């Protein structure tokens, strides 16, 4: 994965939109406003997969529970009930347990993805070059999965 990107190096308009949102003061809120672009939403889902796997693969699965609790508390959201379980389910769904998130409505799943991506993949915690590389990877995944079968 390349680490020398800039915003302009991002191949697609959807990728640039996501990078712009991640650079704003409230990334989660900004990302949530991208819901009217199906391509951007699909790319956001792939970016979520990439960001979560880079953060949690190889770690103790219990770290997901602690991370969700910290995230929701930081966002002043209830951290002890349904929302926390759904957030954990959405994260673990891309770590090899897809069945955990089957019952979660699309809108709630999208909101949670916005919060999690807005936290895991934003500057300055993630340097811009790495962030661009993450979006490139998400774009590559999207292109691969969108490719029609021959």
């Amino acid at each position, binding site marked *: 994965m390349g680490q020398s990107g800039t915003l302009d190096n991002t191949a697609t308009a959807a990728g640039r939109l996501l990078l712009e949102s991640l650079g704003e003061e409230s990334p989660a809120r900004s990302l949530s406003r991208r819901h009217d672009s199906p391509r951007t939403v699909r790319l956001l889902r792939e970016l979520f997969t990439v960001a979560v796997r880079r953060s949690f693969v190889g770690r*103790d*699965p*219990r770290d997901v*529970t602690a991370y*969700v*609790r910290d995230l929701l508390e930081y966002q002043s959201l*209830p*951290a*002890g*009930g*349904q*929302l*926390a*379980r759904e957030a*954990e*389910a959405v994260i673990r769904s891309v770590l090899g*347990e897809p*069945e*955990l998130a089957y*019952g979660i409505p699309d809108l709630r799943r999208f909101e949670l993805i916005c919060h999690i991506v807005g936290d895991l993949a934003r500057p300055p915690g993630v340097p811009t070059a790495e962030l661009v590389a993450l979006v490139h990877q998400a774009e590559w995944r999207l292109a691969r999965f969108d490719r029609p079968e021959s």
Partner: protein
Amino acid sequence: MSPIFSPVHGIHTAAGRYLRRVAYEDAPPARSGEATSAARHVWQIAFGLAVRRRFEPDSPLAEIRRTVTAVLQHHAAAALPALAAEMLIRDALGETVPVDEIDDAVRSGAHLLLFAGLVEELAMTDGELEGLVMEAEELAVEVIAEAVRDQPAASAASLSFT
């Protein structure tokens, strides 16, 4: 001691007997929705005892997940949420996990079915199962006695799940 718990040997409450029947797959756990709070308390305590016999606080999550998956597959009709079931086990092990906002019927259903699954995994004998249920009853006695005090006209039968 509450009059419910006479010195007679064995399981003393309808809730305890029902729990044993669920463990023997001789009772429909769907009836947990009709349970009294005292009965739910007995089941919750028994569930916690079984969880702590089966797992350590640092047991791998994959091991807990295997148990949950096996129980939910065996009782697919109950449609219990897998993550809530897992969280109840981890909660019983002392972890700080999100267990708020789980409906009473779902919570008790999970307690009963997971208890039965754990008894199966532990290959408990009849005597060990009875001892576990009796221990849960004894630990729950204060709550049950409180329920009796709140409903002085109620008979012991009212402590059952019916």
